[in-house]
C-alpha cells in the first residue's frame, strides 16, 4: 500500500472524528477557546491533506479501495472485465482542488466566527466539521451511491447551520425551504441511481459508464434527468434555485461563506463528473442534445441571477443571487463539453470561491458593526464610522468579482471565453460579461452608498431611518482583526493565484485527463499505472492574453457603469430616472415569483425536471 492511497480516507476521517470528539467533550470543556482551537486545528489539517493530494495527483489519480475490496476478475455474477464490488475514493486534481477549497473556506469561516459568534455553542463547531467532512467525501468519492450519502451528510449539516438561530423567524423558514427542496433533489438522485443499478448492476461511477453501452434509451434518459436535476438543485440552477437566497438570508454569515463559496459549486462538480464518467460514453453521438439543454439552463440562470442580484437590497440575498448567476456561467462552461471549458470552470470556481467568501465576510463585518444587513439601513454608516480599510476591501472585492485583472477571476473568465470561441459561440462572451458586470456592479453600488456616502435619496427617507436607530447598538467601534484578516487573505490569495498563468494549463490538462474515460477506467478498475492517462486531443494554448485582460477590464468597467447609474437613479438625467422606473416595473413580477412559499419551489422544481428530461428525450431520439 502506497502512502498516497492512505491520504483520501484520512481527509474524511479526521473531521468526522474531530466532530465526534468535540461533541462528546463539549460538556467537559468549559473553556470555549479549546473547542475553537480544536475545530481550527482539524480544518487546517484537512486543508494540508487536500492540498497535498492535489499535488500528488498531478501525475495520475490516487485510488483507495475501502477494506481492501479492490475490483475482482469476472465471475458468474458479473460478466464485465472487472467488477467493482467495493467502494473507492478516486482522487484526481479536480476533486482534490474542490476539497482543498472547502477546507480553506472552513478555515476562513472559523477565523471569522472567532469574534462574530461569541455565543456560538460547541454544536456550531461540530456542525462545521461534519459539513466539511461531507464536502470532502463528496469531492473524493468514486461511487455514485456514496455521492448521494455525502450529499445528505453535507445537506443535513447545512440545514442545521441555516436554522442555527432557531429563535428567529427567518432562519426557521429559510432552513425549511432549504431542507425540503434539497431533500426532494436528493430523492430524485436516488431514483436515478436505482434505475442505473437496475440497468448495470454497478454503483461505481466508471463501471456504470462502461456497462451502459452505446444507445441511450428511455431508461438512460430518465436516469440522466433524475440524477442531473438532483445535483442542479444543489447547484442552484434556475428553476431549481429558489431555496438558495432564503438559505443565505437566514444562515449565519460564516456558513454563507461555505454555501456560496463551495457547496453550490460541488453540485456543479457532480454534474460534470457524473456526466463524463457515467453518461458521456452512452450519449456519444447525441452529446449535442445534452450540450444544448445544459447551455440553455446555464444562460437563463446566469442572466436571471444577475438581474435579481442587482435588484436586492438585503446584502446577503444580493450575494446569494450573485452566486446563482455565477453558477449559471459555470454550467455554460460545463455544457461546452470540452477540456478547455471544464478547465476554465475549474479555475473560475476556485477564483469565485475565494472572492465570494471574502465578500460574505464583508457582509458579516457590517452585521457585526451595525447589526443591519439591509442596504437602505446602512447608507453612509460606513463613512460615518471612518471604515477606510473596509471600504478599500469592499471596492477591491467588487472589482475582483467582476473580473478585473490580476485577480484569478479574470483568468477563469478569459479561459471560459476562449472555450466558447473554440465552439463557435461568441455570444456566450456577452452573457459572461453582462453577468459579471451586473453582479460586480451590485456590490459596487452597495459599497458606494455605505462607505463613500454616494446616495441621492431624499432627506425624508434618511430621517425615518434615524428614527429607527435607537434599537440598534453597534457592538464595537473597531472591526476585529479576526474578521479583516480572512477577508484580506482570501482576496490576497485570489490576486496571487491570478499571477500564476501555469495554473491554466494545469487545469486544462487535469480536465483533459478526465475526458479520457477509457484510460481512467483502466486505472481505477483494472489497476493500470496511475501515470498512464493521457489527453485524447491536443490541448489548446492557455497563456493569458490581452483579450483575457480586456474582457475582464470591460466587465469591471461595466460594473462601475451600472453602479453609477444606480447611484444617480433619482437625481440623474431624466432618461436615466425614467429607465430605472421601467426596469423596476419589469422586475416586479419576477420578484413576486420568488415568493418564499415552499410549495411554489417544489412546483418549479418538478417543472425543471420535466423540461430537462423532456427536451433531451425529444432531441436525442
Amino acid at each position, binding site marked *: 500500500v502506497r502512502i498516497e492511497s492512505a491520504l483520501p480516507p484520512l481527509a474524511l476521517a479526521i473531521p468526522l472524528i474531530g466532530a465526534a470528539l468535540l461533541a462528546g467533550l463539549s460538556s467537559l470543556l468549559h473553556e470555549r477557546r479549546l473547542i475553537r482551537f480544536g475545530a481550527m486545528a482539524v480544518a487546517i489539517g484537512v486543508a494540508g491533506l487536500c492540498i497535498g493530494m492535489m499535488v500528488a495527483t498531478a501525475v495520475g489519480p490516487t485510488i483507495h479501495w475501502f477494506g481492501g475490496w479492490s475490483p475482482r476478475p469476472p465471475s458468474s455474477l458479473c460478466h464485465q472485465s472487472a467488477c467493482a464490488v467495493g467502494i473507492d475514493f478516486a482522487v484526481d486534481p479536480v476533486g482534490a482542488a474542490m476539497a482543498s477549497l472547502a477546507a480553506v473556506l472552513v478555515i476562513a469561516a472559523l477565523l471569522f466566527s472567532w469574534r462574530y459568534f461569541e455565543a456560538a455553542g460547541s454544536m456550531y463547531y461540530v456542525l462545521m466539521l461534519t459539513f466539511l467532512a461531507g464536502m470532502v467525501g463528496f469531492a473524493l468519492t468514486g461511487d455514485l*451511491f456514496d455521492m448521494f*450519502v455525502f450529499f*445528505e451528510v453535507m*445537506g*443535513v449539516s447545512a*440545514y*442545521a447551520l441555516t*436554522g442555527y438561530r*432557531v*429563535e*428567529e*423567524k*427567518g432562519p*426557521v*423558514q*429559510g*432552513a*425549511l*425551504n432549504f*431542507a*425540503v427542496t434539497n*431533500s*426532494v433533489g*436528493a*430523492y430524485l438522485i*436516488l*431514483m436515478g*441511481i*436505482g*434505475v442505473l*443499478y*437496475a440497468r448495470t448492476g454497478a*454503483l461505481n461511477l466508471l463501471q456504470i459508464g462502461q456497462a451502459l453501452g452505446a444507445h441511450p434509451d428511455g431508461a438512460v434518459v430518465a436516469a440522466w434527468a433524475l440524477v442531473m436535476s438532483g445535483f442542479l438543485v444543489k447547484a442552484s440552477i434556475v428553476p431549481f434555485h429558489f431555496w438558495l*437566497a*432564503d438559505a443565505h*438570508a*437566514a444562515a449565519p454569515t460564516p456558513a454563507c461563506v461555505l454555501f456560496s463559496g463551495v457547496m453550490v459549486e460541488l453540485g456543479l462538480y457532480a454534474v460534470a463528473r457524473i456526466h463524463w464518467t457515467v453518461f458521456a460514453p452512452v450519449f456519444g453521438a447525441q452529446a449535442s442534445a445534452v450540450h444544448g439543454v445544459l447551455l440553455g439552463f446555464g444562460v437563463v440562470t446566469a442572466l436571471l441571477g444577475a438581474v435579481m442580484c442587482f*435588484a*436586492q437590497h*438585503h446584502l446577503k*440575498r444580493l450575494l446569494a443571487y450573485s452566486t446563482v448567476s455565477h453558477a449559471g456561467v459555470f454550467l455554460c462552461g460545463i455544457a461546452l463539453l470540452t477540456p478547455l471549458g471544464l478547465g476554465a470552470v475549474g479555475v473560475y470556481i476556485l477564483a469565485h470561491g475565494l472572492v465570494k467568501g471574502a465578500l460574505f465576510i464583508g457582509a458579516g463585518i457590517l452585521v457585526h458593526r451595525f447589526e443591519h444587513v439591509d442596504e437602505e439601513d446602512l447608507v453612509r454608516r460606513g463613512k460615518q464610522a471612518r471604515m477606510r480599510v473596509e471600504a478599500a476591501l469592499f471596492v477591491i472585492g467588487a472589482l475582483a468579482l467582476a473580473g478585473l485583472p490580476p485577480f484569478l477571476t479574470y483568468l477563469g473568465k478569459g479561459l471560459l471565453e476562449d472555450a466558447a470561441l473554440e465552439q463557435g459561440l461568441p455570444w456566450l462572451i456577452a452573457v459572461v460579461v453582462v453577468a459579471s458586470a451586473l453582479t460586480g456592479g451590485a456590490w459596487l453600488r452597495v459599497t458606494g452608498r455605505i462607505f463613500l456616502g454616494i446616495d441621492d435619496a431624499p432627506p425624508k427617507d434618511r430621517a425615518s431611518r434615524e428614527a429607527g436607530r435607537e434599537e440598534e447598538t453597534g457592538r464595537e467601534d473597531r472591526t476585529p482583526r479576526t474578521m479583516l484578516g480572512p477577508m484580506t487573505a482570501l482576496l490576497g490569495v485570489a490576486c496571487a493565484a491570478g499571477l500564476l498563468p501555469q495554473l491554466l494549463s494545469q487545469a486544462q490538462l487535469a480536465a483533459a485527463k478526465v475526458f479520457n474515460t477509457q484510460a481512467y477506467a483502466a486505472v481505477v478498475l483494472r489497476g493500470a499505472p496511475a501515470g498512464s492517462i493521457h489527453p485524447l486531443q491536443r490541448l489548446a494554448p492557455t497563456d493569458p492574453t490581452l483579450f483575457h485582460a480586456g474582457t475582464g477590464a470591460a466587465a469591471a468597467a461595466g460594473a462601475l457603469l451600472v453602479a453609477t447609474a444606480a447611484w444617480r437613479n433619482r437625481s440623474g438625467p431624466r432618461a436615466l430616472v425614467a429607465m430605472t422606473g421601467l426596469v423596476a416595473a419589469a422586475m416586479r413580477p419576477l*420578484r413576486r415569483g*420568488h*415568493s*418564499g*412559499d*415552499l*410549495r411554489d419551489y*417544489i*412546483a418549479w422544481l*418538478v417543472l425543471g425536471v420535466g423540461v430537462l428530461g423532456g427536451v433531451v428525450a425529444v432531441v436525442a431520439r
Partner: protein
Amino acid sequence: VSLAYAVAAWLLLVGIAGMVTSRHLVHLILCLVVVQSSTYVLLLSVGYRTGAHAPIQVNISSSAPQVDPVVQALVLTDVVVEATVTALLLSFAVQAHKRFGTLDPHRLRALEG
C-alpha cells in the same frame, strides 16, 4: 416487478402533488416521506428475484438464489438518512409553529423577493 416500478412512480408523483398542495407543514413533511418511500420500493424491487432467499449466508448452500443484498444495504442507508432529515424537519416545524403561530406554509412570511 413492473408493477413495483409503477407503484414507485405513483408514490413519487402523489407525494410531490401532496407537497405542492399542502396546507400544513407536518402534512408537507410527511408527503416528503412518501416521496422517499418511492425510492425504497424502487430499490427493493430492483434487487428482487422470484423464489430467492433472503441474503443471509448462514445455513444456506451458496448456490441457492438470493435477492440482491446490495440494494438492501442501500435501503438501510436510505432509512437512516430519512430518520435524520425527518427529525430535523419536524423540529423546524415545531419552531415555525412557535415563531409564526401557524403551520400553514402559505402564511410563513419572513422571506421574499
